[in-house]
């Protein structure tokens, strides 16, 4: 490994734009970055890889001036680089596109861009048009951001960065909300930037993308650099193994034989409570015993609304949701859980789990009725703690114990807990939204395996996800949610990624 790193270094001895030397940053109880050193060359697309909790975001925050290292130095273009805040970092030439956009939906594109800039050029609209034309980022400065698709919103963020002529562009999980077509457009833009000498630090979980795009990759594990490679010369699997430090076993193919209908959704219409949400329109599908139904779609096309309508958080017409022959559309979450319909929402902190509560208390959150964790309202704390402990053990949740707060867990571990909490309650139907979103490869594999095992035992599972590779891997049947409408359910085998991409782009035409 050591010699490999050496030779890679030699091959990119062009000129380093940013050099990180022995960066260390400790938070109470955890060393987020431990002696991290690597360099990003001029005009290089450099991938930063690692499981959740490996220290990627801390590292990025240090580069962007949001966090200051405890020790170690950074050199930017030959000079010492010690940004005290994002403004200083931007002034030096670092641009940042965050995973979650910070845009005001009620303002126009130009207004949003002006808000995020330190110095606004005289004719902003013209500058925006020029930049978007130059880099193939179709964008109308006068449109309201609220009307834009996720891909277009990302372009707003990218254009905002490009207007400041960055020398280094940092992108955090840029493709997680894009359709395949939008990803293609983004990659063209990034390649053009690289050709002009802009360096890019690219953070992603999607190994295939990294293999296509990146010149070099640095791999972090538990805050340390554990390796670097040229992604094009590796397989996705070998990179993943470097990330997790163990060999991965891909799940084996499953024979799917549909059983009786467990869950039947008929003409479900639901006006979204959120002004910028997506209303569900005539959603209908049947879910059979043993079936894994994959529902694809770009974020914001009704996924949250569909989950809320199935979980019972939002009530519908009685007959719109029928569980094992019983109309439950007008019943709340606990009634549906008692009937075997369990759900796991996308947002772990604040929706699926209460961040400041212990894992025991979070086990009570959905288990109180179905697991009989109370006696006439009085909570059986011992049974509840045992239930939490069972989830932790069965799903290999890495935590000191059930008394720890949910927010102290890394994303992947909390997701294992949240999904495990439902699976361990033996659901007849399980609905999960984005089960592996922001989860590292090892945890994602565990979660997928658990979902398949549940289906093998005769349950029906609905997986709502934006990760097509994941859906292709685990789904028996397949549908796409676009603009609040669900496409007809079809067998997953034989569907091409291109077909899906077109269905997904149904409402927002991809540029």
């Amino acid at each position, binding site marked *: 490994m050591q010699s490999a790193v050496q030779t890679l270094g030699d091959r990119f001895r062009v000129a380093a734009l940013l050099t990180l030397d022995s960066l260390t940053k400790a*938070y*109470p*109880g*955890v060393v987020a970055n431990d002696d991290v050193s690597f360099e990003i060359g001029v005009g290089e697309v450099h991938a930063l890889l690692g499981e959740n909790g490996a220290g990627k975001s801390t590292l990025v925050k240090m580069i962007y001036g949001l966090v200051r290292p405890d020790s170690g130095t950074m050199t930017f273009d030959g000079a010492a680089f010690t940004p*005290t*805040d994002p403004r*200083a970092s931007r002034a030096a030439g670092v641009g940042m596109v965050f995973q979650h956009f910070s845009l005001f939906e009620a303002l126009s594109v130009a207004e949003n861009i002006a808000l995020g800039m330190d110095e606004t050029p005289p004719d902003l609209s013209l500058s925006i048009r020029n930049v978007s034309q130059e880099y193939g980022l179709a964008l109308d400065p006068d449109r309201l951001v609220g009307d834009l698709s996720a891909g277009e919103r990302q372009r707003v963020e990218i254009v905002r960065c490009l207007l400041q002529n960055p020398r280094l562009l940092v992108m955090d999980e840029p493709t997680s909300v894009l359709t395949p077509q939008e990803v293609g457009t983004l990659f063209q833009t990034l390649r053009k930037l690289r050709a002009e000498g802009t360096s890019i630090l690219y953070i992603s979980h999607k190994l295939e993308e990294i293999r296509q795009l990146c010149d070099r990759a640095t791999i972090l594990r538990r805050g340390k650099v554990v390796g670097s490679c040229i992604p094009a010369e590796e397989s996705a699997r070998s990179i993943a193994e470097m990330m997790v430090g163990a060999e991965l076993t891909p799940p084996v193919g499953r024979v799917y034989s549909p059983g009786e209908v467990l869950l039947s959704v008929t003409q479900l219409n639901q006006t979204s409570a959120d002004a910028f949400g997506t209303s569900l329109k005539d959603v209908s599908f049947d879910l059979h015993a043993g079936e894994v139904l994959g529902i694809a779609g770009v974020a914001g096309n009704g996924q949250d609304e569909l989950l809320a309508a199935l*979980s*019972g*958080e939002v009530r519908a017409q009685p007959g719109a949701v029928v569980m094992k022959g019983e109309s439950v559309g007008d019943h*709340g*979450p*606990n009634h549906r*859980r008692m009937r075997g319909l369990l*759900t796991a*929402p996308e*947002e772990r*902190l*604040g*929706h*699926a*789990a*209460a*961040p*400041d*509560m212990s894992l025991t*208390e979070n086990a*009570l*959150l*959905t288990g*109180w*009725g179905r697991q009989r964790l*109370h006696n006439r*309202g*009085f*909570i059986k*704390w011992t049974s509840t703690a045992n239930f939490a402990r069972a989830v932790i053990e069965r799903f290999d949740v890495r935590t000191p114990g059930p008394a720890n*707060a949910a927010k*102290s867990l890394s994303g992947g571990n909390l997701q294992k807990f949240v999904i495990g909490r439902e699976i361990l309650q033996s659901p007849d139907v399980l609905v999960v939204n984005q089960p592996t979103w922001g989860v590292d490869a090892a945890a994602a594999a565990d979660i997928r395996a658990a979902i398949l095992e549940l289906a093998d035992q005769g349950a029906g599972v609905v997986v709502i996800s934006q990760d097509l590779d994941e859906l292709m891997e685990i789904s028996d049947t397949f549908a796409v949610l676009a603009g609040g409408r669900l496409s007809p359910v079809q067998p997953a085998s034989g569907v091409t990624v291109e077909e899906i991409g077109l269905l997904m782009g149904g409402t927002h035409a991809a540029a």
Partner: protein
Amino acid sequence: MLRLEPRAEPSRLMTALTPLIAVTATMIAGGILFWLLGKNPFEAIRIIFWDPIFDENLSSYARPQLLVKAAPLILIALGLSLGFRAGIWNIGAEGQFIMGAIFGAGVGLAFYPADSVFIFPLMIIAGAIGGFLWAMIPAILKTQFNTNEILVSLLLVYVAEFILASMSLGLLRNPEGAGFPGSRNLRSYESAHNAELITNTGIHWGVITAVFALVAIYVLLQRHMIGYQIRLAGQAARAARFSGVSPNWLIITCLGISGGIAGLAGMFEVSGPSGQISIDFNVGYGFTAIIVAFLGRLNPIGITLAGLLLALTYIGGELASFQLGLPSAAIQAFQGMLLFFLLATDVLINFRIRWRHGVAA
């Protein structure tokens, strides 16, 4: 330069320590205030915090007063803490306190001059109902029309005060009172009198109820699904809805319990320490209880300690204004400082202070 850095976990030490820091800071800032008013700050602080309990001459009067004043504060604050934990802000406990007193006293006076052991229990029930019903107004308006319970409950305090004035001038006025406003004195009507149960301790039925409420609320929060759902809703509203907690049910429950308890406190006050319905028998317990609830960290035991402390500043403040001629507004400002410093020091629970070396940004 000072810098705040987020902590990974809230500091338990600081959760316990910040009330003490706030009390100390209040003493210092209050001392400066008293000094600016031309009084000896050390003497003023001593009179407020020390004399009521330890001064030989004063303590025989002041010590029983401690429980008399602390009981309504603790009782109301315990009720409020439930809603505050769930993010439901009942600011109108003062109004519910008044309505509880009117209902309780009204039932008692309706039986005058009958003699029965059932009258006082009936008054207790009526007091709770009065406070409960008054709290149901903001509750139902919120669930039906999504009005803001802070504004509605607060404004209803002033409505309640007008009703109180009307009662003491009209319906409940003492027919033998020579036309003076105010009801018959319940202290001289034995069946309706909330008497001191043990001489010179200040213990009356309100104190007993406060102890009972302390245990009940503690158990509710720690061991009961209702308490769990209240905590869950306060910490993560979406997670609560996902768990199956109905937001409307929660609003009705929290406002109902806090209103009922405030009504109880009002009833115990009017039938005991105050004795009669008068235009201004309420002295702001319902508002001070908000400070008590926060000073006590919304924790039943903390609220009990905070209630005793605030009662002490009430009594000590009276002594100080009596002995040093401090204006009563200065004492109120002093109590306000306590809440101010508590909220200010709260930041230490989730953040740590670091000294930043080198150049400032």
